[in-house]
């Protein structure tokens, strides 16, 4: 009797061995898994926090359009400026919105880049004219294709130098040539004395459509 109690049963020993191995493997697996997961959490830091400063706020109703660049950077754009621009190349002005309450030019967000130009009022389509003032139209200047500033004027159309996208500012910035997937949004404006003032935000989302 004693003899059988002390004898080693090879089958039982084998089973014990398998059980030990499974427990160890599970422990190692859980340990490695948890370590990897906790390391991944560090990766959250790769995505920076977005802080909205007054300079980064999107354009909204009441904002005044000011020169984005050049000698007059930061100054209000006047109808006289736009008439002078008509004879230059390009015949439009790149603008930023300025919050009249705190006088902050909202120039720290690329999607706030705006194109303003004066066109023949009769050439505008009815929808475009609705958001224009005396032929003055404003659009987001960020190309819907890959986010360049649409900064040129070619073949009597608004031309993006990056991949040849062309928009027609008379017809709601309809794409007339090239690869852009859609029009850029118009910015409804009105004239207040000598200033060009937004009456709302962009009609739809500005920026590259990707």
């Amino acid at each position, binding site marked *: 009797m004693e003899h059988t109690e002390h004898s080693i049963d090879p089958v039982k020993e084998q089973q014990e061995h398998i059980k030990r191995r499974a427990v160890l493997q599970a422990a190692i697996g859980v340990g490695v898994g948890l370590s990897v997961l906790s390391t991944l959490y560090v990766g959250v830091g790769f995505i920076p926090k977005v802080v909205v400063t007054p300079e980064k706020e999107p354009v909204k109703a009441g904002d005044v359009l000011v020169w*984005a*660049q050049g000698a007059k950077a930061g100054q209000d754009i006047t109808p006289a400026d736009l008439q002078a621009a008509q004879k230059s190349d390009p015949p439009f002005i*790149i603008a930023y919105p300025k919050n009249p309450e705190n006088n902050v030019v909202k*120039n720290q967000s690329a999607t706030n880049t705006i194109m303003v130009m004066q066109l023949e009022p009769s050439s505008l389509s009815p929808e475009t004219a609705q958001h224009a003032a005396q032929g003055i139209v404003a659009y987001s200047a960020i190309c819907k294709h890959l986010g*360049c500033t649409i*900064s040129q004027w070619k073949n009597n159309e608004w031309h993006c130098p*990056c991949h040849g996208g062309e928009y027609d500012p008379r017809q709601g910035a309809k794409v007339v040539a*090239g*690869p852009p997937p859609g029009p850029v949004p118009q910015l409804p404006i009105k004239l207040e004395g000598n200033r060009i003032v937004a009456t709302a935000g962009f009609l739809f989302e500005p920026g590259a459509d990707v």
Partner: protein
Amino acid sequence: MYKWLDERLDLQRLNNKLFRKAFPVHHTFFLGEITLFAFIVLVLTGIFLTLNYEPSIREITTPDGQKLPAAYASILYIDSLPFGAVLRSLHHWSAHIMIAAAFLHMIRIHLSGAYKKPRELNWLVGIGLLVLAIVTAFTGYALPFDNYAITATKIGYEIGAAAPWVGGLLVNILFAGEFSNTNTQMIPRLFSVHVLWLPLTLIALIGLHLLVMVKQKHTQPKYAERVSPGKVLGVPALPSQGVMAGILLLVYVAVTTLIAGIFLAHPVQAYGPPTANTPAVKPDWYFLWIYGILQMIPSSWKFELLGATFGPQFWGGILVPTLVILGAAAIPFIDTSRHKQRYLELPSQHPGRTSFVIAIVMFYIMATLAGYKIDLELPNALLWVLVLFVPILTGVVTYVVLRAFYGKTPEEPVGGLQGSAAND
């Protein structure tokens, strides 16, 4: 001295085992070495640049009263140092040369069938190196923070963002948030990626590439089969091969420094600091083909699926390059051979493969031509014909000509002309 070291390190054995290794000689074998030299020069000139570059966009006032972003101003400072402009230009040129030499090296491997078993692994590592080298060059592009570089990089950012589902997250990590002239975290992030993480990855992959090559032995040139069939023919790694490589390195450095000095690359002063405007930019030659395809794809090619947009940017910027890379990676698995590849094959004896390679090169040239669509006022329909049919036509003509001149030789199964040239 030698004896002292030898007693401790057993240099004699190391010499016998490693440095006496026979390395075959052929002029096209230097393409890979030139790639390596370019990388060495990039690291050395890059170290010089980091010592004087300031990765920040904070506004500083220069001695002459200009207000400039610090990164841009530090490039002007580098240009004012003794040989500073030349070294920066050399860094820029070396990036071009590294990518070009790697590309030619790859074509040499393809034309001579050296990708076949057992070297499929190194073919894949090589493709990884080429892609990584291009990504590294791209991340360095924005660092001078001039208007041209910022515009060009912005396009790359939006192309990355066009990748379905993950694109937005990916570019947010690479560029530390939204791409903007005023994003203060962007330049430090790109700087770290460009000078630290990607070069370390490149060094590791280059090491692996060379290690696999040494382990598997370099392919033997065709003449070795005639001269001493079944034997390894070559010169010892040291001194003969080492001296050759050393001389080539010196010649390489001399020639590229001369070029870099005469043709100063990327004059940031001419472009000026970033503004709200977009200058008309053209990407570097290794992106020009993608740029061309982007201009050809009409705006109507767009649909949405499960919250992701598949627009023209996706087709031209993501899908086509991905297909090209996957197609290249698949080559050794399409063209399988039963024997272990020991000798290089002559392109003339493999007309199918050779004409395929030439068709691919033609595709690249035609897509690059499409990059000049606006300048040359080329109609879109013509470009589609050029990009799709000229490569196929070139391939067929090459095949016929090779067959006519070199006769019918035993053909091996190749992925040749059956595959669409545009997709592979």
